[in-house]
């Protein structure tokens, strides 16, 4: 369990998230996913369990990847690896068009209108959206139908 905590804390340190951000939580690793759960979450028996708490990381063939919902949740602590985008850039990213932006390679936190909204991937020169379908759908509707964003 301590190893898992260390793994999570070390991973998120690249975004500037301090260890104290995780002190009220516990972690669970199931398959390729790491979940953030309450300290006293009970592992109930006899239920066909689909999810535990909030999925914050999952393992890909390139290594660990943060979820967009994890970056949203820890947004107040994120100080590094931030990629700010405007409306046009966000819409392009959602449509699958890479954005020219020079950033250190790896996962970055997308910031829009002052809020961390999710995850993107940088190869050093280009940024690609890693937002899940659900968020892409929500932001597409937002950007196309209203100016109140």
């Amino acid at each position: 369990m301590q190893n898992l905590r260390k793994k999570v804390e070390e991973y998120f340190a690249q975004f500037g998230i301090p260890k104290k951000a995780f002190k009220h939580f516990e972690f669970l690793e199931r398959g390729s996913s790491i979940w953030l759960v309450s300290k006293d979450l009970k592992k109930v028996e006899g239920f066909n369990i689909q999810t535990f708490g909030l999925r914050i990381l999952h393992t890909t063939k390139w290594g660990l990847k943060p979820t967009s919902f994890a970056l949203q949740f820890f947004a107040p602590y994120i100080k590094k690896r931030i990629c700010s985008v405007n409306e046009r850039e966000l819409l392009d990213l959602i449509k699958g068009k890479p954005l020219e932006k020079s950033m250190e390679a790896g996962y970055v936190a997308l910031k829009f209108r002052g809020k961390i909204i999710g995850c993107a991937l940088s190869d050093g020169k280009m940024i690609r959206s890693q937002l899940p379908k659900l968020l892409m759908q929500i932001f597409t509707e937002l950007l196309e139908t209203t100016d109140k964003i």
Partner: protein
Amino acid sequence: MVKETLYRYKDIIPDFDTFLQAIKSRRITTVRWNPHKVARKELIEELKECFAHVESISWYKDGFRLGYVEKPGKTLYHALGHYYIQEESAMAAALALAPKKHSLVLDMCAAPGGKTTQLSALMENTGTVVANDKAIARLKSLVANVSRLACVNVIVSWNDATKLDTSERFDYVLVDAPCTAEGNLQNKITLMPRETRETLSSLQKALLKKACELTKPNGTIVYCTCTFAPEENERVVAAILEEQEVKIEKIGISVPHEKGLESFGKEFYGEELKKAIRIYPHHLNSGGAFIAKLKKKG
């Protein structure tokens, strides 16, 4: 058609004409603060930025009335999980259950997750809420809402709640039972037939019976529906009071309501059922709800 069917409630619903009027009326949009993602004060500013009218609900400070809004979900703050769109009447059941921090809670029919995420908020993201649903198709929206609102104390499970085979015993159980949803008629074309009501009544009884079994001694159960039909409400609770080791308790929240029914037509449910509450659309310009709170004997 709808109006005619609702006439069976003429003698049990005070201000019946106002009730009928409210059934047809457009409803006020209400939302609930999600404390896991944003401070309350900050949310108020965000809501004021997006909507012309923002008013805290008098009986529940974490709920807000936004007036008549076309698309309350189309804001950045909704996408970020700062608030949850929920009918005002639907906010009452979780408050009636009032789970303490660090407790073990079961939400038997949880999708799409409005009450689950409210329970999670009331428990300040501590303890465990097992959010169960039978319909796999509905689990998608449940998981999406739990993720969007960052409820780290929620486990999502896929089971037929009436057939749960577990040794776990819960401090609190919520039975938000499938029902004919007469309280949400505004969104429906026709009422469900009488036969559906009878079938549902059996399912509701089975769910509540299982809830009694899965609750710890001295634990609390809340049974709720969004229908007016006594066959799905007082009749179900009266049958369980008769056969299970539970008692009915007063609900300590100040939401406008009428008392539960002692009887309906030729059916007698008992004076105790007056401790249940009935929320009608004209009370809150919202949907309808029935809520009963039971305590398992020690």
